[in-house]
């Protein structure tokens, strides 16, 4: 009996031990690696927080977003950083992977606010951004987020320092509407089908396409969302084939396009024009020669198009950072590129590195902020902090690529 009693008591001593462990760890917790900026060249570093979904379910978006952020920061430093009052500032990336876990994303946002990280990129995934941004509200930080929901938040009083660096993805203007119109003009469809994933982006794009098609007089005969864990697309293709639409919208990422095209090819369903919802690159279409009509819309700009000489400086910068030439999917690398470069210029022009309101105002109004090398997009922020730039579509007809816009 005594044996049992003592055993129990000992066992319980573990709880305080764990507590002590926790307390000790608390003092050193939360630290982590940061970006690889060469701080030696600068007098002081400005921390740029990166809160992206590098792993987890949304990693196929988050990883390019993170790379884009690194690239942009690298570029600012390569261009000499920011000089204010004779002091040279460089950008320093503070990278955190939120693993597509909102709990983690909130933790990271709070860590940033605690550590005085005033400039934050991400989260760029809507389902992670929303909860994380809630906790950035009211904190003194300036946020750029590629998340779809950011476009609907910007301009609202609770989002005064939020910037949306991609053209609006839904609604009456912007990427989706433009893509739908371009497709309608090119392919003159009577019947359209939409097959997108059941996730926030798929939802946004699907609704956008449906509205745009219908207002252009195109009948939407199929509007389906597959589960984000779907791997077998044969049933969807079977359904589509039976409906025989003229255009099929798929995407919004390459990862969905390839399996769908594989099944479409196997099913002999190659007659319609396949529209890649913005985010899809031309790459997957090249693998299916029997599919002769396709269109993709650049989320940013086709940086691999050699005919576009205005991008030469950008391509040099790209090669310097990534050590390879831009490919079909490299448009992702522009997500934060211009915004971060413009941010650096606004600091310079406004003559401050910590007055967020002054920096924001300059970012919107000063023409000076666009004057940096390797500028890639003709990007401008409107008074709501929403980015605008020319939208570019790419048609792939019988293996030939052509650009519009």
């Amino acid at each position, binding site marked *: 009996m005594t044996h049992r009693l003592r055993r129990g008591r000992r066992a319980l001593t573990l709880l305080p031990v764990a507590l002590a462990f926790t307390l000790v760890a608390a003092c050193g917790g939360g630290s982590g690696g940061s970006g690889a900026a060469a701080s030696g060249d600068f007098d002081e570093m400005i921390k740029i927080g990166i809160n992206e979904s*590098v*792993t*987890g*379910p949304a*990693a*196929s978006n988050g*990883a390019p977003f993170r790379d884009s952020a690194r690239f942009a920061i690298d570029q600012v430093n390569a261009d000499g950083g920011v000089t204010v009052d004779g002091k040279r500032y460089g950008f320093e990336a503070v990278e955190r992977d939120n693993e597509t876990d909102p709990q983690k994303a909130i933790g990271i946002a709070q860590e940033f606010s605690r550590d005085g990280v005033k400039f934050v990129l991400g989260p760029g995934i809507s389902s992670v951004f929303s909860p994380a941004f809630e906790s950035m509200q009211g904190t003194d930080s300036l946020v750029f987020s590629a998340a779809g929901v950011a476009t609907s938040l910007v301009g609202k009083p609770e989002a005064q320092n939020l910037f949306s660096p991609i053209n609006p993805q839904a609604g009456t203007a912007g990427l989706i509407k433009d893509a739908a119109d371009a497709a309608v003009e090119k392919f003159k469809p009577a019947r359209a089908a939409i097959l997108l994933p*059941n996730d926030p982006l798929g939802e946004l794009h699907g609704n956008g396409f449906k509205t745009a098609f219908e207002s252009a007089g195109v009948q939407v005969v199929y509007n*389906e*969302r*597959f*589960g984000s*864990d*779907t*791997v*077998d697309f*044969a*049933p*969807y293709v*079977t*359904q589509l*084939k*039976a409906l025989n639409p003229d255009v099929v919208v798929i995407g919004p990422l390459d*990862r969905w396009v*390839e*399996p769908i095209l594989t099944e479409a090819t*196997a*099913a*002999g369903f190659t007659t319609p024009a396949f529209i890649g919802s913005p985010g899809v690159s031309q790459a997957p279409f090249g693998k299916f020669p029997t599919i002769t009509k396709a269109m993709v819309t650049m989320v940013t700009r086709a940086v691999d198009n050699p005919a576009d000489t205005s991008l030469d400086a950008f391509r040099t910068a790209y090669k310097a950072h990534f050590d390879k030439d831009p490919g079909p999917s490299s448009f992702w690398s522009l997500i934060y590129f211009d915004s971060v470069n413009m941010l650096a210029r606004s600091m310079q022009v406004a003559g401050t590195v910590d007055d967020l309101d002054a920096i924001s105002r300059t970012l919107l109004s000063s023409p000076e902020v666009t004057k940096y090398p390797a500028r890639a997009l003709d990007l401008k922020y409107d008074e709501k902090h929403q980015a605008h730039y020319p939208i570019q579509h790419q048609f792939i007809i019988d293996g030939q690529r052509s650009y519009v816009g």
Partner: protein
Amino acid sequence: MSSELFLQALVNGLMLAALYALVALGLTLIFGLLDVVNFAHGQLILLGAYVLSSIVDIGANFWVALPLVVVGLVVLGVVLDMALFARVRDEPINGLLISLGLVAILENAFHVIYGPDLRRVAPPIDAVIDVAGIRISGNRLLVIVVTVFVLVALSYFLRRTRTGKAMRATAEADEAAGLMGIRVERIRHIAFAAGAGLAGLAGVLMATVYPIEPSLGEGPLIMGFAALILGGSRSPLGAVLGAVVIGMVQSFGTTYLSSSLADVLVFAFLILILFWRPQGLLRARLETAL
């Protein structure tokens, strides 16, 4: 047109059924002989797929890689069983908990080693069979053919070979089997190895028709469980039957209703079957089945 749609849905469903049958068979062997609910089965499937992609990447032929992967997973199965699961035989729930730990470790490993991007294995067969407008790709046909072959072979193995008979006896009554001179522990290692091998094979076949990614294990695992339950949990034949039902519900549900409804349908069907017929569609056991 509509009969064509129906037949195409049937063909699509058959491949799903074949894949789920392999998964459910593996789960059934492990559950039937070891009482372990192996949540890590999905990760073993994925491991098979990833290892295949790695072997093919270094230039090996698919047909060489296939047996390598299966053998590799069989060996891994033996190791896992001897090192982990054999130590908690008397408390089956601990086997389940260990499998949860394996899920975390393997999934983490896939993320770190292979990254989040989709990986693809060049399909071994580049042909499509077209019979009166009903089309099936050679790779999908391969899944069905291999599964049927495995079913026949497994049936022969369980009925005709010494080890197979010993497995059936052990599944039925392990103590009695032990008294009859069957080396029960050895039989259990074999069962786990066979289960892991089937998972590896399912992974290989899956990689020929689907792109693979780290979170891909969950779907086949859940559907495998569903098939297992429908089939009565310890019966290989039942597991196959359950897999056919699930594959068809999914295929026809997606084709004629909607995908989200098809999934809801699978779970609702499972709940109702469990409620009305907890013994499954078939009451057969390893001993009488196949």
